[in-house]
């Protein structure tokens, strides 16, 4: 495999990592008003993601920063096209992050309720928008002969965007519910499991619909395999929830999100942004890739740093492995 393809895989890896990790804390955030009925219970729900959500969000910084460095034209076309979706995600993430950190800074139930609302909305919006972006990306964008984006503002573009949005929303809700079941006890755990049993079937159906579209639009043999794998993983997670195997269920939803995102990237490859104007203007891995020197530099940098990052992030999950108890 040549270096540009490896870097395409690395970018995909960071998007997978981002959506798997932040996927469960989006899920926990949007479910917090339903699973936590009292102020104290909602506090306990949010505490399950408290120590880790910020580290999870940094995966997005890398997932966005890497294409800037190694596929500059991809990055440029992507975010100038998805201007308004990116804006929605940014506003949501700013509000959500601040609400998570500020919630406990005042001893005031009204304050807590406002922060809870900001966390719920701020978790819901990015899940929907990222899903819509993935779906729309598979469909393609109006990219002109110079490789620049030549359309107007994009919001959610038709069925592809919509099916992606619903699929990621369902996956995040299921993933978050399963994570909550894994990290809580007592009444919270009971409610989290009940939510997981509701969200699970929705997630399975939504993922089947979305991946069927991806497969029909741009799929090949490999994407068919990963797509089927994604559906099986989510379905297996649902079985695990019914059988009360919390750890297996979480592994299933994590694998389900991972394979769904992988399927999108596999289906896209070797394109990074398909052009809807003329297939010949499609941005590809080869046409947008940075110079060999920049790639070599990034390979050295990432090769040295990434193992450390994975090690200490893993350690932080280990430190906070105990279940959270509601008051």
């Amino acid at each position: 495999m040549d270096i540009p393809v490896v870097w395409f895989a690395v970018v995909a890896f960071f998007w997978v990592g981002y959506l798997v990790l932040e996927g469960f804390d989006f899920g926990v955030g949007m479910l917090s008003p339903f699973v936590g009925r009292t102020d104290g219970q909602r506090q306990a729900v949010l505490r399950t993601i408290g120590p880790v959500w910020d580290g999870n969000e940094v995966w997005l910084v890398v997932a966005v920063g890497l294409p800037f460095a190694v596929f500059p034209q991809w990055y440029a076309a992507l975010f100038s096209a998805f201007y308004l979706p990116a804006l929605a995600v940014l506003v949501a993430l700013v509000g959500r992050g601040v609400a998570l950190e500020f919630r406990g800074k005042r001893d005031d139930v009204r304050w807590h309720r406002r922060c809870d609302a900001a966390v719920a909305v701020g978790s819901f919006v990015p899940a929907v928008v990222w899903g819509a972006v993935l779906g729309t990306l598979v469909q393609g964008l109006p990219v002109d002969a110079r490789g620049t984006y030549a359309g107007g503002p994009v919001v959610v573009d038709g069925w592809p965007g919509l099916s992606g949005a619903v699929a990621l929303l369902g996956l995040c809700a299921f993933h978050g519910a399963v994570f909550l079941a894994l990290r809580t006890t007592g009444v919270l755990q009971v409610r989290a499991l009940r939510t997981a049993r509701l969200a699970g079937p929705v997630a399975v159906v939504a993922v089947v619909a979305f991946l069927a579209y991806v497969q029909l639009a741009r799929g090949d043999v490999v994407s068919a395999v990963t797509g089927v794998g994604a559906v099986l993983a989510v379905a297996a997670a649902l079985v695990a929830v019914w059988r009360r195997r919390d750890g297996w269920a979480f592994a299933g939803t994590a694998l389900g999100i991972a394979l769904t995102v992988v399927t999108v990237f596999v289906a896209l490859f070797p394109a990074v942004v398909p052009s809807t104007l003329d297939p010949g203007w499609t941005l590809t891995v080869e046409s947008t890739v940075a110079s060999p020197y920049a790639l070599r530099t990034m390979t050295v940098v990432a090769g040295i740093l990434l193992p450390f990052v994975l090690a200490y992030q893993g350690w932080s999950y280990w430190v906070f492995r105990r279940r959270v108890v509601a008051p």
Partner: protein
Amino acid sequence: MDVLDLARLQFGMTTVYHFLFVPLSMGLSAIVAGFQTAWLRTGDDRYLRLTRFFGGLLVVNFAVGVPTGLVQELQFGMNWSAFSVFVGEVLGVPLALEALLAFFLESTFLGLWIFGWDRLPARVHLGCMWAVAIGTQLSAYVILAANSWMQHPVGFAIDPETGRATLTDFVAVLTSEMAVVAYAHTAAASFVTAGALVAGISFWHLARRNQVGVFRIAARAACAVVLVAGIGVAVSGDMQGKVMSERQPMKMAAAEAIYETSAPASFSVFTIGTLDGREEIWSLRVPYVSSFLATGRLDGTVEGIDDVQREYVATYGPGDYLPNVPATYWNFRLMIGFGMTAVVASLAGLLLLRRWDGRGRGRRRRRSARGDRWVARAALTLPLLPLLANSAGWVFTETGRQPWLAFGLFRTADGVSPGTTASEVVVSLVAFAAVYAVLAVVEVGLLARLARKGAPPVDADADSGDGPDADAPLALSY
């Protein structure tokens, strides 16, 4: 206004806003780590209280700093996609390095620190805060290297086929003279900023005779930090001025509003005249200082705006290479003025500290009640001074670079996204302005509440109301 003006306004607004929080986080994390280290070494509970107290403020500050930084990263693609394509691999590599090296470090270890009080051994827990402090400094270094590249591009070549900048020497980008002095200047300024916040809050409590024993320690430490860092700011600023005069003579000329090349050149502290500084009615001038700032010699030549304009036309072709001279001239003065006032105020603070040394007699204490009110008022304004200086500094250095995005290579006007419409930029500008305004109110209100409460007593953890919960974090819970 067209897309270009709107996009510039948006970038300026979001950058200055982001940079209100960044230097505080940089300096404060090190100060908190310092207090915690002092606590581990002495076992003195007052240091623990200071660690918890200022650690709480740090967390609030961090919560706004991180997501507003993400806004900056996405804006390159949203508003400046033409520039992103041109420069992506040169600026993108340091940005990616920042995320991998520093962002993960800061956010992961801050989470471990906040929730790890009773989960981690004391030394490991302290190490988490040091990791945060180091992470913020690494972040600043790498970002300033990227910014310095835009001020003075090095380590690149222009691809003859695509016309884009390609990276040829990453080490040169990271170690350019410009990057080193810019980092030194910013790092020193971050300690002035955080020190002024700690000193301001401490003197406010001291003036109200509140937790005098605890806040005396903090006030003395913070004043010392501001003084030492203030010297660092001055020295590094002086070095930066010389590099700037060499690499960006127009910026130096605009900073002084000197139109004709002069040797020796005087420094105008304050000028009344036409706004662009072409004609002056009256000015307060210090002879030789501009020459010294620019060249290090008292009689050194400072190039004037008109001569530099002629030079640039000869080098880069016809065009107007003047930045906004009044904005550059006045922000340069505001930066120096606010910064110096903060340092002088901290020196006064060190002298004032004897007021609360506990040895004062009753009569002396009564007499000083009126003085205390003044101390309290001055203390509230102290943290604002470095923040204003930092903002003015950024506005100065970025407006002074105009009309270039990457100096000598790429004009600002060519950088905007071709597909982006003015309405998109207006929508996002309004959205960010609204969110940032709300955030500012919430953040300042929260910081003020926390600051007013003072340092919590060491056994305050029991009041978090979480019951017998092994996972309940202590003073900094949700």
